[in-house]
């Protein structure tokens, strides 16, 4: 074995040692397994009232709507999903969908309405990020218009991670990474309000009024879970 061989072997041994140390470090620093950090006492169908402002739960529609499921993950991501239809005293109909996940992993952004409506065959247009007032608090929300022949559905939605409302997917990713570096996992909620309407502008206005009434009806102690602190 000549000297060049020795140098070569020394490099190999050095490199593999570094790899071994990294592997062992990662194994030792492995975070303790957390099954779920669902906020205690958070139950979507109790959190959201049956009557908000001029709107009340459509009892007949309830039959067709998937109930909150506490035993199994919904779509593999959420711990609880609430789907409801409200009817207003003025005859307006609003669909509410709330999804809550105790652990916000990588998969959630796929379930943003602009993506999931598209994959269900809708055209998605006019996605705008707006600030709306909910229970005297400014909340960054998103508005969009999903449509396909025979169905025009304006949508308003917002997402909460931990106690921060954030609607920019990049910022959300960054928030989750930063929390992860601290060893924390954020919980997250997506609140979606939509209605079948041809007049998109008026529908969005109505949805904002509904969302405001919806949030006002929530126990103040739990409001930060829905619109952030």
């Amino acid at each position, binding site marked *: 074995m*000549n*000297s*060049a*061989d020795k*140098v*070569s*072997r020394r*490099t*190999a*041994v050095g*490199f*593999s*040692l*570094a*790899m*071994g*140390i*990294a*592997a*062992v*470090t*990662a*194994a030792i*620093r*492995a*975070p303790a397994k957390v099954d779920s950090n669902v906020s205690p006492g958070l139950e979507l169908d109790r959190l959201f009232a049956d009557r908000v402002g001029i709107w009340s739960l459509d009892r007949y529609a309830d039959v067709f709507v998937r109930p909150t499921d506490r035993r199994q993950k919904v779509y*593999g991501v959420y711990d609880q999903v609430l789907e409801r239809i409200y009817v207003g005293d003025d005859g307006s109909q609003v669909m509410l969908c709330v999804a809550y996940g105790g*652990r*916000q*992993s*990588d*998969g959630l*952004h*796929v379930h943003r309405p602009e*993506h*999931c409506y*598209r*994959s*269900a*065959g*809708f*055209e998605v247009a006019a996605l705008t990020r707006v600030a709306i007032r909910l229970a005297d608090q400014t909340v960054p929300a998103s508005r969009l218009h999903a449509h*396909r*022949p025979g169905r025009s559905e304006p949508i308003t939605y917002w997402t909460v991670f931990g106690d921060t409302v954030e609607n920019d*997917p990049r910022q959300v*990713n960054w928030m*989750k*990474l930063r*929390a*992860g*570096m601290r*060893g924390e*996992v954020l919980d997250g909620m997506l609140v979606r309000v939509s209605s079948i309407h041809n007049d998109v502008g008026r529908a969005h206005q109505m949805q904002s009024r509904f969302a405001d009434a919806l949030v006002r009806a929530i126990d103040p102690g739990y409001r930060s879970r829905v619109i952030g602190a």
Partner: protein
Amino acid sequence: MRAAAYSGAGIGEAAAAARDPARWDRVGVVCIVLGLALLYVPTYWDFLFGFWAAESQGHEMLVVAVSAWLLYRRRNEMRDIRSPGRPWTASVMLACGLLAYVVGRHLSQLHINSRIELSSQFLVLLALPLAYRGWRGVRIVWFPLAFLLFAMPLPGELVSSITMPLKQAVSASAVALLGLIGYPVGRTGVIITIGQYQLLVAEACAGLQTMFTLEAVGLLYVNLMNYKSAWRATLMATLAVPTAFMANVVRVVILILVTYHFGDAAGQGFVHGFAGIVLFVVALALLVALNQLVGRVWGNPR
């Protein structure tokens, strides 16, 4: 065995080696392989069977095996080139890779992000040829390492932004084709109507993931053909894209026909049973046929 290509016997000692042909230093090779296994067996295990299994596309192990085999094929080329190594640059790269590994593994175990951990393998693997043979060594193994990209999960946003127009185009072509030969077929967006049936063209990601897999097969084919002309190689690699597209059209056409003639259950059975295999056979057959055709025009089988 993927690391076999990297750690080499010294090359500075040209004179001494004149009678003693260069060979791999077994101890070094074993060390490196062990190190890589310690790092990435847990990674791939978690990715394939743990929390992240839902993100995997099902062909990762195949991609890793093919990459390893491609590297192994180049071991002699790597051993024989005379090019100074860059151990210091390589050490920095390895350090970055290992840092990304430790941080990434932490994040993936918290179920937050799996890509950082998986990405670290590229830095770690690049550091090895760089240390022993410099950038020329890296050039020898660029394809096997790039091929490993197909084992990475696709970012969801990219998937949905590319998939939609692709799905539209695939279903439009399939419907136009069937309409041409007189089937009662119509389409709105990604919903296809045939007779009394309605079909939604695949779920959110299925379409694009098969496109990527097919592109991988195409690139592998081009690489193995070892074309003498770079233009020819580029042409064939580019042709792999429309080939994958055509294969998808064939898949949708078959799905529509099966549904129309044998009912919804048979159609769904096709989707979950044979559609994938049909896709691959058609794509590969098309690629081979295209290769023959281009070969004729080029006037040279390669």
